[in-house]
């Protein structure tokens, strides 16, 4: 975790309202994020009354040795006003991070059909308001519900919610019935329709199972509190995605959530999603 060493308190409170500067490279962004986390941990330590169990991200900056717990609940705030038209950096980064770019269209499959058959964890969506005609861009991914319909319906319990709020699929017990895909209101899940020839060690994938975004769990488990999509968005200079801990009142995510009005997609279903959107 060489990034930890780079932590310097440059800008503990990134301005969420002004357009971000375009210059910073990924490393600089990481520094900002790390600094924020470090500061947040410090603030927590100073502000919270003694006797409370303190936790900080700092002591997690190594591969974890204890099981994930509900001390954290990982989530996101996506500021749709910052999500740029025509930009698909988050999608590309997700594809590379999770080996989705290694999928190959089976010989003989129709190109359009294949696009609807290949696994997609995050997609760029462009909306137009029916009344005003206002355009909105946003990335749509698994919303990591607190009460996920996909978990309710899975007959074997392969679709599950981890203690830290990450909704994912245990491929070892998934039988490929696709009931979770029927139940998901967001089309977040994909079925592996084809034989898979190439895999990354960190992202196993095989024919006949269902999968979806796992908030880059392999990063989280190593204490790297980030996702590929959020990093890529920041790298492009858009900073539309803030990733963090929904349970940390002083963390970057909660601060960002408090700073601007935001809502859940299909709020009417009362799923209490972990991914929130501003500007829709």
């Amino acid at each position, binding site marked *: 975790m060489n990034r930890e060493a780079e932590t310097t308190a440059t800008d503990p409170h990134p301005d969420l309202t002004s357009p971000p500067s375009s210059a910073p490279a990924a490393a600089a962004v990481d520094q900002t994020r790390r600094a924020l986390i470090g500061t947040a941990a410090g603030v927590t330590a100073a502000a919270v009354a003694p006797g409370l169990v303190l936790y900080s991200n700092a002591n997690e900056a190594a591969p974890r040795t204890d099981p994930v717990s509900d001390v954290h609940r990982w989530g996101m705030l996506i500021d749709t006003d910052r999500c740029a038209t025509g930009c698909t950096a988050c*999608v590309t980064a997700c594809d590379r991070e999770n080996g989705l770019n290694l999928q190959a269209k*089976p010989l003989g*499959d129709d*190109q*359009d*059909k*294949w*696009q*609807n*058959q290949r696994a*997609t964890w995050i*997609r*760029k*969506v*462009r*909306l*137009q*308001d*029916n*009344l005003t005609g206002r*355009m*909105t861009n946003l990335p*749509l991914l698994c919303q990591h519900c607190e009460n996920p*319909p996909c*978990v*309710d*319906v*899975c*007959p*074997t*319990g392969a679709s599950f919610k981890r203690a830290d709020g990450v909704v994912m699929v245990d491929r070892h*017990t*998934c*039988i*490929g*019935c*696709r*009931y979770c*895909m*029927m*139940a*998901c*209101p*967001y*089309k977040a*899940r*994909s*079925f*592996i*329709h*084809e*034989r898979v020839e190439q895999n990354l060690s960190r992202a196993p994938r095989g*024919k*006949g*199972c*269902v999968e979806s975004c796992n908030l880059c769990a392999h990063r989280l488990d190593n204490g790297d509190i980030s996702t590929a999509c959020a990093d890529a968005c920041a790298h492009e200079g858009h900073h539309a995605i803030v990733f963090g801990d929904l349970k940390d009142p002083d963390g970057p995510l909660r601060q960002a959530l408090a700073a601007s009005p935001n809502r859940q*997609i*299909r709020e009417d*279903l009362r799923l209490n999603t972990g991914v929130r959107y501003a500007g*829709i």
Partner: protein
Amino acid sequence: MKRIVYREWRVEPARYWGLIAILGAAIAIAGLAAIYMEHEGHWLTGMTNSVVWGTPHVFAVFLILSASGALNVASISSVFGKRFYKPLGRLSGLLAAALLVGGLLVLVADLGRPERLLVAMTTYNFTSIFAWNIFLYSGFLAITIGYLWTMADRKGEPFVERVGTVAFLWRLALTTGTGSIFGFLVGRSAYDTAILAPLFVVMSFAYGLAIYILVLLYSFAADGRPLGPAMLKRLKNLLGLFVAALLYFTLVYHLTKLYGTKNTDIETFILVSGGIYTLLFWGGWVLIGGLLPLAILYHPVRGNQREWITAACGLVIAGGLATMYVIIIGSQAFPLEIFPGQTIIEFGAPGDIGGAVAPYIPSLPELLLGLGGVAMALMITAVGIRVLQFLPESLADRDVDPHASVVRPA
């Protein structure tokens, strides 16, 4: 009432083996189709990440519904005490078990990882209605076999009423469970209503009885057993009642949906603008599966003619498959309403479907797999009645009901 004598099916060997060969071939082809899909992956079906359940599920759900419906005939005699139906009980139980096995095989063969069936049988998530259904299905099979024993064995006879009642309640639970698989899906506009459960119950009544009458007519005609007009008249009147109830529940389902403004879009899709799904709804579900059979069954003359009753049963079955297609596939093809009040301009890469009607064209292997399930159900039935005493010697009116002469023969 005369003692009922049951005899093995004595159709001539050439015809029997011919039938077995045809059904066997259909099953073998379905097996090959399943292996092909399993080996290559589901990309070669019409199914996608939008339409995740396809033609195999149309057949599987239809067969499972019919299974519980076919058991009704036995229930009428042992639960509701209509002894007129008693000789029909054994075939009813056999057909129920056979249809269920056929449906489940299709369902299992379509899984992404069918070799993990053991996982499904040993790892349960009890918040899943699907997991409950695994119990309901296996329980149904066990109860039906027990029920057959009470109907067929002298020692079991004292229990027939009790076991029959359990079987009846169980089949109601099973169909309710099957309906709930769809009814509890809050994310999809076409589902998300509790009325799907009773709708599925009346569907099962109608489809199960239609299949039952067809099998009865065919097997009796094939080895020249008498089947009295009064018996047939009761069965076809019952079918008419079930079909009418099905139409009524269909009406209520759509009225319920139309009442909520938020469902206007899905209703417009199914009833007006849905292309193939609209056509299948009006042409298949309502006309072929409902109005036409009703017109035949209640026709003063044709309603009593075997050919016309056969046709009516066939129409109910065809309409039933169309109904399943609309309910299962039409409802998935209709876009998820992720962003109410917004129009989706772009959704992922071109070809990825969101906010638009998802294309679905059934592929040949899927269709063959589904038909294989039907063939399997018929094969089990044919072998069953051939080797065991399932069919009554005679269903002539005077053999079944002492008051038969009251009913005017057609």
